């Protein structure tokens, strides 16, 4: 009996739920004095609602979801915090093999470029428009997600207006592959392992991985409501300690096989182990080089994209929102207290300074000028 309250934590079947699944399976939550039950959820909206009303104490979350919920973008405002990032990289843009073939026909040089830009797609869309053909359909996992902003950014960089030149839909991750097979969608941006599943089934081709789009790009966080964090500070710190230890374990190549087997279980992800391995090799980072640190500049980039696409009004005090939601101080406190178990230097070697965002197109992002950055794109839907 540790005297800590029992926790119910939610996750979506994706490779980056690993820190939660590992912390539970290896007994790390228990070692930190927590009795945790994990709940596999089917949709991000349900995760958000359950955390908001307290049916879950915390959950695996899309980072922009915590910001959107705090700002009340898609309903009532429920302030949430992100005290730890669960992973960097992991998503990818995949298109159907049929579409990939068409793109190679129209722009073979563009398709040979590394990283691949959306130029070949822009050319094809132009041709289709001239012929009066229907819009192509692309799916993302949620309106407020790295995946949505990644796909939109990648398209717009080549002059494609994602709200006008294609049809953007939302499809749950486990359903992406079947919709690609049925021809309902022509491409998607989703997290691991679903891109690999599409490739292995011969249905899709990965065009660009998150690690090429933006090396070390943010993705999921562990989210709780601000109110819960204030009520249960000891439970939160214990959970963070367990998650940091689990992340370090998941990054260790020696544990790769065990991790893949654990994630492949039907009550976790329920996908082929070979597909899960794909993104764990040189793509997803859970812990190394301070990957768990919820970085302010990541929050500011998300806010800039939310403003760019008209989801929120462009405001000058983005930093206020970023600092309220992203809580590196809580991560530091938990990681620092792990000293004897995990060398804090490992988590902080590169964590103290701001890491400049290096997106594939080379456009510089100054976190202090997030609003100006949002307004500086040729294609944007800025609200006045």
């Amino acid at each position, binding site marked *: 009996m540790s005297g800590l309250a029992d926790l119910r934590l939610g996750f979506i079947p994706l490779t980056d739920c690993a820190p939660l699944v590992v912390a539970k399976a290896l007994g790390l939550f228990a070692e930190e004095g927590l009795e945790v039950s994990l709940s596999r*959820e*089917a*949709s*991000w*909206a*349900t995760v958000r*609602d*359950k955390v*908001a*009303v*307290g*049916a879950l104490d915390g959950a695996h979350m899309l980072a922009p979801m915590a910001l959107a919920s705090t700002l009340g973008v*898609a*309903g*009532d405002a429920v302030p949430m915090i992100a005290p730890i990032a669960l992973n960097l990289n992991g998503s990818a843009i995949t298109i159907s093999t049929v579409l990939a073939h068409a793109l190679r026909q129209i722009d073979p040089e563009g398709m040979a470029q590394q990283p691949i830009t959306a130029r070949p797609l822009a050319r094809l869309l132009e041709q289709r428009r001239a012929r009066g053909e229907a819009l192509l359909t692309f799916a993302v*996992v*949620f*309106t407020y997600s790295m995946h949505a902003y990644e796909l939109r950014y990648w398209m717009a960089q080549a002059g494609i207006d994602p709200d006008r030149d294609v049809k*953007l*839909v*939302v*499809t*749950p*991750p*486990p*359903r992406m592959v079947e919709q690609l097979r049925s021809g309902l969608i022509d491409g998607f941006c989703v997290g691991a392992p679903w891109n690999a599943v599409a490739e292995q089934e011969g249905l899709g081709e990965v065009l660009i991985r998150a690690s090429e789009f933006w090396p070390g790009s943010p993705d999921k966080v562990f989210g709780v409501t601000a109110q819960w964090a204030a009520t249960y500070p000891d439970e939160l710190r214990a959970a963070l300690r367990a998650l940091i230890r689990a992340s370090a374990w998941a990054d260790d190549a020696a544990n790769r096989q065990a991790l893949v087997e654990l994630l492949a279980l039907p009550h976790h992800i329920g996908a082929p182990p070979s597909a899960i391995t794909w993104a764990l090799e040189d793509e997803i980072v859970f812990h190394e080089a301070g990957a768990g640190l919820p970085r302010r500049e990541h929050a500011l980039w998300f806010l800039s994209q939310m403003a760019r696409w008209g989801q929120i009004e462009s405001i000058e005090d983005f930093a206020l929102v970023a600092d309220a939601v992203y809580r590196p101080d809580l991560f530091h406190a938990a990681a620092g207290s792990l000293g004897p178990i995990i060398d804090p230097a490992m988590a902080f070697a590169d964590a103290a300074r701001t890491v400049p965002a290096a997106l594939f197109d080379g456009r510089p992002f100054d976190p202090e000028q997030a609003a100006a950055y949002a307004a500086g794109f040729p294609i944007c839907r800025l609200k006045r």
Partner: protein
Amino acid sequence: MRVLVIDPDPARAALVAEGLQGIDPLEVRQAALFDEREVTAFAPDVVVIAADSPDRDTLESLRESGHSSPRPVVMFVDRSEPGLAEQAVRAGVAAYIVDGLAPARVRPILDVAMSRFALTQQLQGDLAKAKADLESRKTVERAKGLLMKERGLDEDGAYRLLRKLAMDKGRPIGSVAADLIAFAGILKGDAS
């Protein structure tokens, strides 16, 4: 009344149909998976979806994007999720039906969901209109200022001129003002 129940389990559609007995006309359709084309063709008054269905995110995005006409959504929650339905309803997150509910309770829940949805839609419409009104008032003020400066009119005279232009063209004063500002910009070389 047309109700679409998205749930692989036909028992829930049956429960909904039973609870809505007596409504005429009534059409309850069940689909295992969400399909936008089907929803567009069927045009339900309300959509009932299992809370554990991954299609929830798709439905929510449609509501946000306004791509298809929005509809009220009611969630079906398994009884094994204690507290979720009550808390969610209290928090105004969504309308939830708890599985195993007496059929008699189905209709009031759908009614509440639909009326609350209509109210939200109206509020959003009002808000958009209020914003547009405000915008138009600002535009008129700017056009007035422009006329005062360029034509040496006083405030009253500038407004009368704008109103006359609007009446002559049979257009709202706000849009005449917007044109005036746009043309002034072009003359100054803004759109070169």
